[in-house]
């Protein structure tokens, strides 16, 4: 009897591992295809052969500029920002055990954006200062809303409401800053407000890419603790997880990734919110959804950008497309949560 149940559990685990591997491979393959499409498609469609030759360094009249200067940075920005948003979002959702608790709803993105706009418009600071300041602002926002929601006993509802309030204030601040801004600073400031891959440039990308490569392994190491945290604070402590440090490290790494991703592409609507639940549904319970969520995020961003560029007569920035896809899903999720009485 005992042996039976052990093998049963082991089999189930193996099955889930297999499912995880399959899902992850499919998502990776899909991301590769979308990346390739991002390089191939445009005003002129170049043959794969030429694209690959330019990527390996050959100079081909016309193709080199279009691919290396316009399409490659756009593709990389979408890929890495989508990945970062997806992972950061799923971390928040897991930490607060609520799919609605994502950096957008909690006002963290607005905090970063408001600070960045302040640095651009008032201080006229350089890129490095802007990134660091927005990162610090994101962290301070987390600390403040978390602190405020703990004053009379923490509850996730309280946290979300306070986040919405904080967000409204930051949005008002941004409107004011845009009003007093000098004309020539507006384009740089607008970048922080609308999610778009337009005008991504190669030299903007390294901070984001490096941070993804450094932080994602750290996050995966902490993932074991994360799945224990999902069981709830009490169980986590009794299983020997130092909840405070784990939670802090995870929030720190996600806020860094969000700030850097936002500084390259702007806040792309709903990715932080969509990626986690979709990945969870694909992978099923029990295995880490970190990497799948990142891949889902990247896939959504790349696919939405392709749709935005080519599906209509007009080019829509990626944020509009993800908004139109994401918002109905958000409403659907709310309806389901309400019906089950989870709120």
């Amino acid at each position, binding site marked *: 009897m005992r042996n039976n149940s052990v093998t049963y559990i082991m089999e189930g685990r193996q099955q889930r591992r297999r499912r995880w591997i399959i899902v992850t491979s499919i998502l990776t393959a899909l991301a590769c295809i979308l990346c390739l499409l991002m390089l191939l498609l445009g005003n002129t469609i170049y043959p794969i052969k030429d694209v690959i030759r330019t990527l390996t360094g050959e100079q081909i009249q016309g193709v080199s500029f279009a691919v290396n200067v316009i399409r490659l940075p756009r593709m990389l920005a979408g890929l890495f920002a989508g990945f970062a948003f997806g992972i950061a979002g799923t971390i928040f959702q897991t930490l607060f055990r609520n799919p609605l608790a994502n950096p957008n709803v909690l006002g963290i993105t607005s905090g970063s954006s408001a600070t960045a706009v302040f640095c651009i418009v008032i201080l006229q600071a350089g890129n490095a200062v802007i990134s660091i300041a927005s990162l610090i602002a994101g962290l301070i926002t987390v600390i403040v809303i978390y602190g405020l929601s703990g004053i009379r006993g923490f509850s996730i509802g309280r946290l979300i409401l306070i986040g919405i309030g904080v967000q409204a204030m930051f949005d*008002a601040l941004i409107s004011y800053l845009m009003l007093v801004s000098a004309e020539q600073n507006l384009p740089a400031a607008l970048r922080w407000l609308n999610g778009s891959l337009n005008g991504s440039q190669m030299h903007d990308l390294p901070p984001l890419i490096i941070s993804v490569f450094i932080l994602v392994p750290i996050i995966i190491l902490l993932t074991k603790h994360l799945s224990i945290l999902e069981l709830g604070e009490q169980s986590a402590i009794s299983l020997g997880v130092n909840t405070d440090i784990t939670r802090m490290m995870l929030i720190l790494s996600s806020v860094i990734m969000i700030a850097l991703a936002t500084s390259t592409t702007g806040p792309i609507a709903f990715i932080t919110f969509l990626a986690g639940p979709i990945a969870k549904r694909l992978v099923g319970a029990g295995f880490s959804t970190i990497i799948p969520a990142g891949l889902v995020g990247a896939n959504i961003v790349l696919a939405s950008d392709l749709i935005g560029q080519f599906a209509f007569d007009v080019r829509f920035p990626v944020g509009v497309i993800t908004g139109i896809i994401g918002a109905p899903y958000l409403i659907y999720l709310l309806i389901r949560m309400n019906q089950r009485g989870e709120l």
Partner: protein
Amino acid sequence: MNRFSGTKLKQVNPHIPKYFVIVLIVSFILLVVCVIVSLVFGSKMVGFDEVIDGLFHPNTTSYDANIVRNRIPRTIFSLLCGVALGVSGALMQSVTRNPLADPSILGVNTGASLFVVIGIAFFNISSANQYIWLALVGAAFTTVIVFGIGSLGRNGATPIKLVLAGTATSAALSSFVTAILIPRSHTMEQFRFWQVGSVGSGSWDSITTFAPFLVTGVLIAILTAPALNAMALGDEAATGLGVRTGILRFASSLGAVLLCGAATALAGPIGFIGLLSTHVMRLVLGPDLRFVIPMSAISGAIILTLSDVAGRLIGSPGELEVGVVTAFIGAPLLITLAIRSKVSSL
């Protein structure tokens, strides 16, 4: 009034609130102050003499007196919008028995915006008379959806459920607004003018367009106040006291939508006035809506007009939209309410 309430209702709370007279006097003084301030301040300051000239001596043609005359419709318009938004907030809060209900938080403003945008983009609509009907339909549509989503499941419409439903719906609708606007630069211009116009676009025309809606809405509010008081005790108690809750809910929601939809149509989306004015008044006057509703109207007018003046001063030489100012004052109140409310009531 008697259709909604039996005579028993009047015994529920027969007392005039303790500070009512003081609040009334203070409010009227403030009202006068903010009218004067609104006439004096702006990108060009005018002296008090000119204000008197502009108001009472129609023959004076000095530059400053003309400025004052131009500011008169704007001031009246902002007072009326404040009344509308204040009353609409008070109605929404009592219909939903939810302290956080406000047209902007529930996404009703965005709904009105979306319908106006659709009107501009697809039906070539360009006059205030037409905006107002579209905005009303949009506001009503969004109210139904948000309340529908928010009241699903156990416990009905709790504050957190309603606010989330409002935020989500608002996010969804604003994506559509952006998607409609991006390819149409002409519509974008017109819409921005409408959205940024705030109370600065107030003219005698917009006041006359606004007036019927305002009067109807406020009348509904005053007539339903006693019955809403009874409903605050719970639906069963209210039914026991002879209130027909279904009709009452419909009537007061209709009033709320008329008021905030019309205000949004003419002034663009302005948030948090309902939340601010109603809470301030409930804090000093207690829960009796027969007093809270009229006083919310007056305090709404004061808050909106002062915010408008503040926006003119902060944004000088241009001006900051009044909606930005009210969000900046209103959001901290939302945060405070979220902190103070009991976990079980969220």
